[in-house]
């Protein structure tokens, strides 16, 4: 969103304290961002972990990059909360893995989050637009 230097937004789960963010040229998204990305991606199509990381990376045109490790605690939390479910499956290479898909509760949660995200985004846009005017 700034000119020149293109930052890569690492989507980091909220559990890490800010001091643990790795470097200055990466920036954490707001809390809950990773969750929305995961839910939205899996709503599109059930996937396994690695596919999910690649999907977010590709769709965001490399702008967003999920810190691979942090994906799994987040997935487990969402499983626990009933937003996702997992079942046994195989990867593209035929290795056994677990496929994640969104539950109905997950979809409801996503929609709620999206609407509040939209409002927040709207708000931010207005404030920024006012300043520039």
């Amino acid at each position, binding site marked *: 969103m700034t000119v020149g230097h293109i930052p890569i937004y690492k989507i980091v789960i909220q559990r890490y304290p800010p001091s643990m963010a790795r470097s200055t040229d990466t920036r954490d998204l707001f809390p809950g961002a990773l969750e929305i990305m995961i839910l939205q991606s899996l709503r599109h199509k059930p996937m396994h972990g690695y596919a999910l990381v690649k999907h977010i990376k590709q769709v965001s045109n490399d702008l967003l990059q999920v810190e691979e490790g942090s994906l799994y605690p987040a997935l487990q939390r969402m499983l626990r909360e009933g937003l996702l479910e997992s079942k046994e499956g195989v990867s593209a290479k035929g*290795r056994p893995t677990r496929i994640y898909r969104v539950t109905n509760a997950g979809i409801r949660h996503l929609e709620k989050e999206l609407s509040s995200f939209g409002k927040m985004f709207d708000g931010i846009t207005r404030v920024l637009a006012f300043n520039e005017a």
Partner: protein
Amino acid sequence: MNPLRRLFGRTRRYTDIDISIEEHIQERADELEAEGMPRSQAEQTARREFGNVALLQQRSREQWQWPALESVVADLRFTLRRLRKSPGFALTVLLTLAIGIGANTAVFSVIDAVLLKPLPYPASNQLVSLWLNAPGAGGLANFSSGLQLSPSMYFTFSRHNQSFQSMGIWTWSNSNITGLAQPEEVPTALISGGILETLDVPPVLGRWFSAADQDPHGGKTAILGYGYWRRRFGSDPSVIGRTIQVDSQAREIVGVMPRGFRMVDRDVDLLLPLAFDTQKLGMAPFGYDGIARLKPGVTLQQADADVSRLLGVWMDSWSNGPSTNPHYYEKWRITPAFRSLKQLVIGNVSSVLWVVMATVGMVMLIACTNVANLLLVRAESRQQELSIRAALGAGRARIARELLLESLLLGLLGGVLGIAIAYSALRLLLAIGPANMPRATEIALDWRSLCFTFLLSLIAGLLFGSIPAWKYSRSRASLTTAGASRTSSLGRDRQRSRDILVIAQVAMALVLLVSAVLMIRTFAALSHVDPGFIPDHLQTFRISIPESLVKDPLLAARSHNEIADKIASIPGVSSVSYASALPLESFDPNWDLIFVEGKSYQRQEPPLQMFNYVAPGYFNAIGSRILAGRDYTWNDIYAIRNKVIVSENFARENWGSAQAAVGKHIRQFEKNPWSEIIGVVRDVHQHGADENSPAIIYWPVYLNTPYLPTPAPDAVRSVRYAIRTDRAGTQNLINQVQQAVWSVNGNLPVASVETMQEIYSKSMARTSFTLTMLAIAGVMALLLGIIGIYGVIAYAVAQRTREIGIRLALGAQRSKLKWMFVRSALALTVAGIAIGVIAAGVLTQAMRSLLFGISPHDPLTYLAVPLILCAAASIASYLPARRAAGISPTEALRVD
């Protein structure tokens, strides 16, 4: 999600996480490999990019966990594993704790049921015992029950008091029930109006006594106890309205009391109304216990003051007959000293129980110090591991937690085992416990006991665990400490805490041993008391001939005489006789005034004396002796010749010697004729070996009673027989006795069959119980103390092996080396003894009431016990010291 399912589905979740993550890394590595990276490098890179795999797995799993608990569980499993690896240690500690906790739980259960729990009546804190002090009434107002109430007092107090919701009086009795099966004597409470209202326990069937039931001219009624109803009537609900023969009188059953109902402190099979005839009441007799329920907000002091005022009213409104002075009783100085009913029920057992509780508590403390010592040694051996963990960043709290967790776990496991021990210990306690333990039926291992066990286990765990936890978590102990195992000796600080534990142990063991020895000496002193009769080979039982069965007093007297004759002809019976009360029975037949001929009382009252009523041959049968004069003959008795026998101390007090008393005269009241003293007998410890022999006037069992307006012959109807025979205690003898009794009268039950030896040991039970408990505790304390000293010295020897080696290499003498270790043990012991002697001097004061013939500061005891302890300490330290001296220097220096 359901937490339970979460818990059980967890292993599957963990596998899912591992599989997912592994696949993720492999897929990334595949990709990198496809980009041209060698496989091994690709995998490495994939892992690096992924981050800390183990940590992320852990973080992922934690989503399914409660982290604080999980790490505690992990610690627990670690602890359990460590305990399994040292079964000897675990077993020693657990057994020590289980015995300590078990003993404490058992004693607590008894104390809780007997002393702590409220009595089983509604709002039982309002219940009071109407206790009267009367210092001027001699033996009538005795230590165990004060001055009892008279019926006329009851009427005055209950009509005019302002303090009580209700009050009543009652007394114990036995009733002969006939017509159901064999004639049976059952424990009975005779109660006035107000008693059931005061206790406030509703009947399970029927009703309480009404005012009409208390009318002497009304219908005759009875209430059954639950046990009797179940035993004799098979819990038949139609029993209400039926008639039973009680002491040959028909009575209608009007109610049944519920299970667990007790008349103050005893089970009763039958409740009967006292049904006083107010027209015929005088001021005496003072033979009833009073209880009352206080009005809310009224204190004992207010009630005392209230009834104090009523004593005047009582003397104004009643009389013992014409030409008697009702205000005579002012001389008795009667004052109300009401106390809670619970206090009355508990009686004097509380001092014994608290001493026993203190004793087992102290054993528990000693056990804890031993365990603490073992744990210290154990923590010592983990010093290196703990230091490394601390260096790697384990917090002080984290290490302390783990050490504490271990001790708590040991405590709780010990507690679980302790419950099993408590269960058997409780049965043992009740078996050897004091006879007539109040509220014995309420004693059980209930949830309160279990809570106690749990708390005790926790506290014990914290107690012995906090010392190593505090010490070892504190020494943040840079690695240098861990590497310091090559220093020649142990850190002074560490050794000191174990020394202090040993000193404490010795001090506590000394207190217990001193107490135990004091009890042993008390028991010995009691056993050496000559009771004045021979308790061996003496069979006893009680027979009562109620007026409703045999109206004529002479006939009643002859019936007893005839029974005695029949028993005398049973093979193996060498002598038989009877009296109102045998020695050690818990009641005195009577107390009253005795005037001695020729003595001037100058308007003063002569002192009250204890009376007993005896048949000819009684002194011979119980193994007493006639010191001067002669025994009664049946001719003396039936002819009412006004003869009397007195005890030696009475004779000495009045005439200087037994011989001088024979032929002298005494009388009970001034209106009575003088009675001639025909014999003087040995003093008998009527109330137990630890009480002085009272002066006793032995009247015959058939005599002119002075208690009627015009004296008339009367018989003593309830007597206890004494049969001297080698067959005492055998069922065969009892059957023959029963046949003999029934051949005289088929309606007479043989009651409270006991040998005198049983009665005698029961009277010693309080002492022997305390003795047994203290002796067990003392021996345990001694053993634990020896183990403690042995452990500390043995460990010191092990730790100082290098130092010993160096000393030996430098030419130290082996005997001096041995002495060095024994000396250090003795130093600890002497320090412990010094503290223990002071503590024992203070603590044994609490035992004063349990001791007999010995001071709580008996010098011999205080000399002997420290010597025993020193000897024990020398032996305990000599064994490891010898091992130290046997070390070869070359080997010692090779250690590590």
